[in-house]
């Protein structure tokens, strides 16, 4: 099956700092989503981005499908950004399940 790797596994930032999270995948995909899991366990959609670039406030994401990676940028980080960030992909040509990466755990400190 498709492999999804996220890096770094853990990240500690001071409030106000910027960061880049990376998601590499092993095959062509037709769906890529970024999620944020908050401390209460809820998975919140950030981006649906199988290709191209999107921005939403302090967050932006870029997927380069031909090179099989996606990047999530967090600018001016806040303590509320803390949690785990997951990338999830679906194999191209299928409508089957999403495969999740193992996540990046982000802690933003004051």
């Amino acid at each position, binding site marked *: 099956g498709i492999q999804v790797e996220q890096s770094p596994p853990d990240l500690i930032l001071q409030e106000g700092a910027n960061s880049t999270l990376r998601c590499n995948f092993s095959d062509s995909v*037709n*769906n890529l*989503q970024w999620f944020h899991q908050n401390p*209460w*366990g*809820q998975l919140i*959609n950030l981006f*649906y981005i199988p290709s191209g670039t999107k921005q939403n406030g302090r967050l932006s994401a870029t997927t380069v499908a031909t090179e099989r990676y996606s990047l999530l940028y967090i600018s001016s980080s806040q303590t509320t950004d803390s949690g785990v960030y997951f990338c999830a992909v679906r194999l191209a040509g*299928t409508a089957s*399940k999403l495969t999740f990466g193992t996540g990046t755990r982000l802690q933003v400190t004051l």
Partner: protein
Amino acid sequence: DVKVTQSSRYLVKRTGEKVFLECVQDMDHENMFWYRQDPGLGLRLIYFSYDVKMKEKGDIPEGYSVSREKKERFSLILESASTNQTSMYLCASRSSGTSGTQFFGPGTRLTVL
């Protein structure tokens, strides 16, 4: 906004009990999913359904069953709960086709004693 709700936020059951976890979505999505999440193991798919009364096994279906009698509702059943089923259970829904955003419910933290 899509809303996915789960019947309980926290649940404590005893070994051997039959457990029902309910999930309801309000966006007329065809696809619904049940995952469990455990430390160090990430999200693992238990079962999914792509239509009423249809179901497909995911990666870890053993010890679980599901029911989808109505489009908006997808139930996960633990026929005889065991301590190794203590976990966070997450329900999700998504529209059909190759594109489409998947939305998650708030999760149910199940403890089996």
